[in-house]
C-alpha cells in the first residue's frame, strides 16, 4: 500500500515545487498562491463542497476513458458523449410535466446515458465494420456533438433562421434550454450555498459497478483480453467485434452519465458552453488513475481539489489560475514516468518500472 502511494505523493510534491519555481520566475508569490489554493479546496464547508462538485464529472469521464483503455481503445470522445448525455437528459427533463419523480428522474437519467451510449457506440461500430480509426472518429464526433448541442438550443438568427427545438423562448436572444422540471432534478444533499447533490453517489455507484464488471465478470475478462491481445482473444473464441462495440457503448454511457448528472443535478439546463474541458480532463484523470476505477476516484479528487482551489487562488494572490493546468500536466508526467521521480529522489528501481502499462496498442490498428 505504501509503495503504491509513494510515487503519486512524491509526484504531487515535486509538481507543486516546480509550479512554485515557475511562479517565482515570473514574479508571483507561490506561498500566497498555495495558501489560496488550499483554502479554496479544503478551507471551509463551501470549499469542500466545491471540490466534491468538481469531482463528480471527472470520475465519470475518467471511468469512460479508462474502460475504453482496458479494451485497447482510445476514447478521445468523452466530451462529445458528455454533450449528448446533457442534451438527451435535458430533452426528457423539460418535458413530461406531471410525472412523479420516481418515474421522471430515472427516465431522464436513462435517456442521457442512452445519448452517450449511442455516441460512443458509433465509433466502435465503424471501427469493426470499416476499420475507421476510433481516435479520428471520436475527435470528429466531439465537434459534431458540440454543434448538434448548439443547434438544439439555438436562439435563431437575425436573418430569419429558425430556433432549435429545445430553446427556451423566454430566454430571448440567449441560447439555452428552459429549466429542467422539479420532478427530473437530482435532489440536493446540501442545498445552496453548498450545492452538493445525490449525483455524487451515482458516480461512486458507477465506479463500483465498473470495477465489478471489469474484474469480476466474463464480459470484463473479454474486454481485458481484447485489450491485451486481440489476436489471442479471437483465437480463444471471444467475439472481438462485439466486445469493441460494447466497450465503446459502455464508455459512451459513462461520459453521457457525466453530462446527465451535471445537467439534472447542477445546471438544471443546457447551454452550449456547459461542455467545457471535462472530456479532455477525463483522459488525464484516467491516465493518472492508471486506468483502475479506484485510481480514477483518487485522481478525480486531486484534480477536483485543484480546480476548486484555482479560483480562490487567483482571487487571493492574483496568480493566474492557469498555473494549475501546468501543475496538473506535471503531476501526470511524473506519475506516468516513475523513472523521473525515482531518479530525483534516488529511489531503487523495480523491474516493472521499465515496462509501464502501454496504452497505445490501438494506435497501429489490428
Amino acid at each position, binding site marked *: 500500500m505504501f509503495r503504491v502511494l509513494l510515487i503519486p505523493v512524491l509526484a504531487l510534491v515535486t509538481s507543486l515545487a516546480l509550479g512554485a519555481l515557475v511562479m517565482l520566475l515570473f514574479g508571483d508569490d507561490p506561498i500566497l498562491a498555495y495558501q489560496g489554493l488550499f483554502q479554496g479546496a479544503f478551507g471551509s464547508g463551501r470549499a469542500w463542497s466545491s471540490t466534491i462538485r468538481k469531482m463528480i464529472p471527472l470520475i465519470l469521464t475518467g471511468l469512460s476513458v479508462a474502460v475504453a483503455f482496458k479494451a485497447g481503445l482510445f476514447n*478521445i470522445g468523452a466530451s462529445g458523449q458528455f454533450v449528448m448525455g446533457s442534451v438527451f437528459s435535458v430533452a426528457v427533463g423539460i418535458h413530461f410535466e406531471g410525472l412523479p419523480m420516481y418515474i421522471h428522474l430515472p427516465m431522464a437519467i436513462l435517456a442521457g446515458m442512452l445519448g452517450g451510449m449511442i455516441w460512443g457506440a458509433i465509433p466502435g461500430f465503424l471501427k469493426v465494420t470499416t476499420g475507421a480509426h476510433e481516435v479520428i472518429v471520436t475527435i470528429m464526433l466531439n465537434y*459534431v456533438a458540440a454543434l448538434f448541442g448548439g443547434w438544439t438550443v*439555438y436562439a435563431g438568427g437575425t436573418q*430569419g433562421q429558425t430556433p432549435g427545438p429545445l430553446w427556451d423562448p423566454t430566454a430571448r436572444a440567449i441560447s439555452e434550454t428552459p429549466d429542467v422540471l422539479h420532478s427530473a432534478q437530482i435532489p440536493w444533499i446540501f442545498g445552496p450555498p453548498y450545492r452538493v447533490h445525490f449525483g455524487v453517489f451515482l458516480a461512486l455507484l458507477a465506479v463500483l459497478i465498473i470495477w465489478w464488471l471489469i474484474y469480476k465478470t466474463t464480459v470484463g475478462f473479454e474486454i481485458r483480453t481484447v485489450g491485451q491481445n486481440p489476436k489471442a482473444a479471437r483465437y480463444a473464441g471471444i467475439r472481438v467485434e462485439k466486445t469493441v462495440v460494447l466497450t465503446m457503448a459502455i464508455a459512451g454511457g459513462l461520459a453521457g452519465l457525466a453530462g446527465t448528472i451535471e445537467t439534472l443535478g447542477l445546471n438544471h439546463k443546457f447551454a452550449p458552453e456547459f461542455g467545457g474541458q471535462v472530456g479532455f480532463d477525463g483522459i488525464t484523470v484516467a491516465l493518472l488513475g492508471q486506468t483502475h476505477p479506484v485510481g480514477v476516484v483518487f485522481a478525480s479528487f486531486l484534480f477536483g481539489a485543484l480546480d476548486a482551489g484555482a479560483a480562490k487562488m487567483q482571487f487571493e494572490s492574483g496568480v493566474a489560475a492557469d498555473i494549475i493546468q501546468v501543475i496538473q500536466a506535471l503531476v501526470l*508526467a511524473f506519475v506516468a*514516468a516513475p523513472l523521473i521521480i525515482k531518479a530525483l529522489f534516488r529511489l531503487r528501481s523495480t523491474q516493472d518500472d521499465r515496462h*509501464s502499462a502501454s496504452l497505445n496498442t490501438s494506435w497501429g490498428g489490428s
Partner: protein
Amino acid sequence: MSFWSRTARVAVSLVVLMLLMAILVELTPLGENKWMRVFFGVSALNFTLRAAIPLVLGALSGILCERSGIINIGIEGMMLAGAFAGFVAKSSTNDWPLYLSLVFSVIVSLGVGGLMGLLHGMLSIRFRMDQIISGSVIIILAAGLTSYLFDRDAIADGKFTPIPIPLLSEIPVIGPVLFNNPPITYLALLLVLVVHIAIFYTRWGLRTRAVGEHPRAADTEGINVNLMRYFNTMLGGMLAGLAGAYLVLEAVGQFQEGMTAGRGFISLAAMIFGNWTPFGALGAATLFGYTQALQNEFLLAGVTTIPRQFVSMLPYVVTIIAVSGLVGRVRAPAAIGRPYDTEGGR
C-alpha cells in the same frame, strides 16, 4: 508497395478537380449560377488553402514522428507553444524592420516547437513514458503555460503579406489561388514535396522508415534507433511550431488563448486519413479546409435554409464518411508506440 498510395491519388485528383471547376466557373457561363459560385468560386479556394496550411504542417509533423515510431498526439500543444513563442518574439521586436522581426519570430517559433519535440522525445524515449500520455502532457502543459504567461496587453505589429510570384500569378484562377500567397504558405506547400522526397527517396528516409517498422533490424544494420527518433521528433516539433507561427504571423496577426482550437487534432486525423504520406495528408487537409470554406461561403451567400450548425458539421461528417469508406484500412508504422532497448542495454 506503391509510394503513391491510393489516398495520395485521391487527394491529388481532388485538388485538380477543384481547380478545374474553379476555372470553369470563372471563365464560362457556369459562373452565373449562384450555387456554382458558392461551391467553386476563387474565394472558396482561397479560404480552403488558408484553412489547410496549418493542418498540412501539423500532419507533416505527425508523419515525421510516427514514421520513426513515435506517436505524436501532442501536435496541438506544440502548435500552441510555437504560436505563443512567435507572438512573444514578434511583440518584443516591434521596433525592428518588419521583415527582420517576422523572420526572427518564425525562427523562435521553430525553436520552441523543436524544444517541445525534444521534450516529447525525452519523456517517451529516455523516461519511457507511454507516448500517448507524453503527448497529453505536452498538450496540457502548453495550454497552461501559454495562458499563464500571456500578457494580454502585448500587441504584435504587422504580419506577413502576400507576395505575388511574377508571371505565374497572372494565370487566371490558378494564379490568384496558388501564386499570390504569403511566404509560410509557399513554404508549407514546398515542404510537402520535400518531406515526400526525403522520406521515400533519401538515405535518411529509408533509415527513418526502418526505425519505425523494424527497429531491431535497423539496429543490426548499425543505425542508432533512438538518435533517429530524437532527431525526427524534434524536426516534427519544429514543423508544428511553424504551423503555430503561421497562425500568429500570417493568418491572424495576434495570439489568442487556445488559438489552435483543435487544429492539432484535425492534423492528426489528416495524417491518418492520408495514410502517413505527405501528399495524402495534403489532400486530407485540403478536404478539411474546403468544408470549412463552404461554411463561410454559405454564410456570405446568405443561405439560411440549412441551420448553420449543420453546415459547420460538414468537415467532421465528411471525415467520418471518408475514413469509413474512402480510405479503408490504413496502416501505421509497425513499431509505433514501442520504446526500443538495445540488446542487453541498460
